[in-house]
């Protein structure tokens, strides 16, 4: 056993931590997409990461938020607060070990999560948060080029919520932000491009993984992002591309493992 059982965090919605039982030196933070859930979006990730020895000194956080409530920028401010709070090991309360410092922070986001995280990191640059230099960004089916809203609501919601989404969803501000060509999409792209030749380049250059023929988001290159060689992933979908499945689809976990 390398990690604590799940610890419920009070920030966001259903945010959960699995702290390393050893002295941690790395942090992974997962951020779900539109109407996703803190852990459910990532399928087997929590099991795989807590069982793998390579993650034994890694704290793992699953950040959750109510994606229908507010705009992408509002969500990013909350996430930035969360990231700042947990950017140094926070296990003193449990007296697991003496607090140390992370050497690496990996942020993994899906779909709308890409907008939330990108906005947050742009503000982290403006506010000169020191931990930003430790961060690496991994994006699955990112919505930073915009999304087809109707498809998003009809195809990407989990389980029975897709039924209710299809018959009772309202056009909320977050859906406006997600629309192709929205002011939020353009704003994030413009701000990101501004840092192209600066030292912040590393922070904002994400490793992206698309699903081949994604029906929800627009697959194309983005600013100075780095595409994973196996991207776009065939026989996958907007919802499946970020979900590792034991012995069947291990790419998301393999990617994380190489970065850790």
């Amino acid at each position, binding site marked *: 056993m390398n990690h604590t059982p799940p610890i419920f965090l009070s920030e966001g919605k259903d945010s959960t931590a699995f702290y390393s039982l050893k002295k941690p030196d790395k942090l992974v933070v997962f951020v779900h997409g539109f109407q996703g859930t803190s852990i459910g979006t990532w399928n087997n990730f929590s099991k795989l990461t807590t069982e793998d020895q390579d993650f034994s000194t890694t704290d793992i956080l699953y950040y959750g938020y109510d994606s229908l409530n507010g705009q992408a920028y509002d969500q990013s401010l909350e996430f930035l607060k969360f990231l700042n709070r947990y950017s140094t090991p926070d296990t003193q309360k449990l007296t697991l070990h003496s607090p140390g410092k992370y050497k690496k922070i990996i942020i993994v986001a899906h779909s709308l999560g890409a907008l939330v995280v990108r906005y947050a990191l742009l503000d982290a640059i403006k506010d000169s948060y020191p931990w930003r230099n430790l961060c690496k960004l991994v994006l699955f089916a990112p919505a930073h080029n915009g999304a087809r809203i109707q498809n998003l609501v*009809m195809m990407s919601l989990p389980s029975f919520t897709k039924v209710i989404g299809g*018959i009772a969803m309202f056009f909320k501000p977050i*859906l406006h932000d997600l629309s192709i060509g929205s002011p939020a999409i353009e704003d994030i792209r413009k701000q990101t491009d501004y840092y192209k030749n600066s030292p912040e380049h590393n922070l904002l250059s994400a490793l992206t993984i698309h699903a081949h023929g994604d029906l929800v988001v627009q697959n194309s290159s983005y600013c100075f992002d780095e595409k994973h060689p196996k991207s776009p992933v065939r026989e996958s979908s907007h919802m499946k591309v970020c979900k590792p499945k034991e012995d069947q689809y291990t790419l998301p976990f393999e990617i994380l493992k190489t970065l850790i």
Partner: protein
Amino acid sequence: MNNIYKLRLDLLTVNFRDKANLNKTYNKFLRLTDPELKELLRDHNKKPIETTKEVSFRDDIDFLIGYYSILMTGILCNYIKPEFSENLLLESRSLLDNKWVKKYYQKYYPLELPDMFRKIFLDSNGFKNNQERDLERNKATDVLFERFLMAYRSRIEDNDIDTFLFILDDGYYYDDEFDMGVDIDKLWKTLGSSKKLKELQKEQNSSSILYSAIWGFAKFVTYLEEYAIILHELNNDTLSQSAIWHLEAYWFKQMKDKLGKALNKGLNNVLTVLNEGYYVHLNPSEKIEEEIEKIWKENSINAIEEAKTNIDFLMNSKLEKPVKMLSKQY
């Protein structure tokens, strides 16, 4: 190894006690007089619960009793050891042995788990574990129990699910902002009529209680799906399966007929709207492809069928037996 059990117990306490500030609830309980407790913890079928203060106190007591249910489930799943501090045992005695609290969880809203905790730790000489389990099997149960805890936490902290369960349990809201009464009939009528759903779209009242109840219904059905998956995966460990089932026994047993019928009515109403070909067109500038519409409709009909199957499974009285039988031994 023992440290792991201690850590798990500590974290169940952090997650399900400290976060809900249950020390405060317990102190509040201690300050109440006998007649006050009798009145506050009455059977709602005899005298309805009307004031916010009453609802709030009963909610807090439910959480406190719920904490003992979670500990009992942890023991039955072999996730924690049946060893508790003196302070906790003292508290459990004053709470679970209190005449009015006992009536509340034994008679008015019967729950097996807190009663079993009381019998084992207050009336007997502790828990006798006759079950030898191999490590691999126990590891699988640990993972499933934790998966359940995460889903359960999400369910108890969700405001929309709260709204839905309140009206499902005969509750009635008056929504001042939208000048509208909301009860379970109103919810099902809205979900069963494309005309009413269109009106809802027109009004864009997404902050309304009705809208919250609609999403509460969707989220609760999704929670039941996760619940059913976890219990299915515990088919080889029937005691743990039964213990986890008992954590929601109020809904699956006491409310069985009402919950089963109501959810099926809700699902059938949604099916009617689907069969009318209704769906929302959110972005007029975006054309809806026929293929997407077809896939969504098929997926939706499947999701409704699956939800019905899961609900039937959870209402299955066989699931309550292993814990009940063990409880009789104490």
